[in-house]
């Protein structure tokens, strides 16, 4: 997930036997937990995808039927599209917004203002999704919410966010931005501040104007950070669940805000079609790995290698 593969540690010489034993001893809790809670469940999910099971009656082997059903499942197609729309919007708004905010905040000379802006941008990120989702359901409420009251004062009527299938997804994208932008912003700011200032000074001395410096020096130097931010934003966004399940428990009007994880949860834990849910989870893994791989491939063209 984090990009570079591990640099090999000390060369592997056949260490002393005592050291070997210590090695196994030290990793044993992690390996045990890893087997029980990650590898085992992962393999078992693949196994379950070939079965029909409701968790109560004996399970039944059905071969590839779950995958065939997935192929013809219109709701699955819909939730995949919803999830892609959300993830794409999330990556674009977070990366662009985070970068602009970092560039802006980095220029502030007033330390008090700079601290205030950083704190208010970042604070929503530490609040749990449950609190954020409930709060925003009230903020956007048509009857007593802040947004409808003040838009009314400004002379326009906002949509009925959570009952209008065109506007539910944009509302959730906006709420997610409010909740998570601080994370992207901090990462961008750290990346920006790691750009060596000599490079920028040198470009200036050579007569480049501000925009050229930004476009030809700062952003290329920040490209590893921008790439990292887009990869993890995509991975996080593709697994979105909490706000959608809390704000629109049934998937929203016309199922317009049902994400793939929400669908998986519905099929696994509401309707107890565990085999089918496992098959959906495999699809999810494949899609996420595929997109991440594409991002890495594409990155060779634009990410500056230090």
């Amino acid at each position, binding site marked *: 997930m984090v990009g570079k593969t591990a640099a090999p540690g000390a060369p592997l010489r056949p260490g002393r036997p005592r050291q070997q034993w210590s090695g196994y001893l030290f990793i044993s809790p*992690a390996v045990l937990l890893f087997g029980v809670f990650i590898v085992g469940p992962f393999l078992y999910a693949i196994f379950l995808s070939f079965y029909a099971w409701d968790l109560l009656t004996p399970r039944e082997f059905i071969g590839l039927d779950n995958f065939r059903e997935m192929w013809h499942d219109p709701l699955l197609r819909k939730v995949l599209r919803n999830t892609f729309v959300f993830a794409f919007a999330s990556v674009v708004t977070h990366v662009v917004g985070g970068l602009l905010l970092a560039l802006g905040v980095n220029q502030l000379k007033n330390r008090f203002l700079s601290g205030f*802006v950083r704190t208010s941008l970042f604070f929503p990120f530490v*609040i749990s999704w*449950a609190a954020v989702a409930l709060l925003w359901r009230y903020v956007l409420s048509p009857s007593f919410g802040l947004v409808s009251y003040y838009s009314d004062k400004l002379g326009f009527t906002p949509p009925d966010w959570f009952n209008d299938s065109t506007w539910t997804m944009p509302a959730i994208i906006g709420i997610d931005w409010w909740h998570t932008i601080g994370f992207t912003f901090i990462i961008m700011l750290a990346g920006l501040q790691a750009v060596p200032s000599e490079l920028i000074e040198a470009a200036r001395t050579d007569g480049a104007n501000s925009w050229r410096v930004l476009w030809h020096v700062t952003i290329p130097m920040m490209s590893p950070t921008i790439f990292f931010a887009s990869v993890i934003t995509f991975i996080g966004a593709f697994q979105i669940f909490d706000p959608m399940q809390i704000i629109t428990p049934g998937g929203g009007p016309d199922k317009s805000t049902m994400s793939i994880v929400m669908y998986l949860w519905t099929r696994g*834990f509401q309707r107890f079609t565990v085999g089918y849910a496992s098959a959906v989870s495999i699809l999810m893994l494949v899609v996420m790995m595929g997109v991440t791989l594409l991002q890495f491939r594409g990155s060779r063209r634009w990410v500056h290698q230090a």
Partner: protein
Amino acid sequence: MGASGVNAGRLSRWAIGVALFLLAALMLAPLGWLIAESLTKESEALRLPPHWIPDPFTVQNYRNISGMIPFGRMALNSLIVATIATAGSMFVSVLAAYAFSRLRFPGRDAIFLLMLSALMIPGQMTVIPVFILLRNLNLIDTLPSLWLPSLINVFAIFFFRQYFNSIPRELDEAARIDGAGNIWILFKVILPLSGPALAAMTILAFEASWNSYFLPLIFIRSEENMTLPLGLVTLNADQGGSSVTVFAAITAIVLPVLVVFLVFQRAFVASIASLGVRG
């Protein structure tokens, strides 16, 4: 600092400052409204125009929370789960990272790579089998069902190993010559030099557990075993028209987080920043 490429004139710098100030104020507005309404008498609260100052002021809404959900119990559950999950996963990860960084044994790099590749597996894929496993262990609807699966934190193992690799090996060789064992080297030589990495991972693990909603939603049934996020959503679902009690409950969850955040802000921000720079 001073790395920005935009050498804006004084005027545009002013404009940027004003715009950022307005945006920051807008970001905080929902929270200000939340707090003000939660302190307003129920019959007046949540009326238009919105309250920005509680009028008439009351704390009765907060008293009403515990009539609807066992709030104190849920807060305690959250604290227990997050503390055990964080302390446990840090201990497990530090031990493994030390072995991956410092000890030599057959299969070491293969096991490490296997763990790394599992970072791609989303938690939602393993949740059904883990649910079945916990059901067979009779752990559904208990607190251990929430912290037990969190004890394995592959990302932390990876992060610590990278950090330990940056600590000079001469230090532990010197300790070893003085007769120190691995436990001593790890806890007395390596960890004291790993403060920032430990702080970063501890904060992130605690935050993830404290805010977790997905796993409790699936593993917990009864109110006395719920953690705060799930309890809050449950309260909202069967509030019986008292939205302002929900406001009080949201505030009661957000305010302690705000205080902790303001105290540890530097470490918090550093922990996020380190993800991008180290990765």
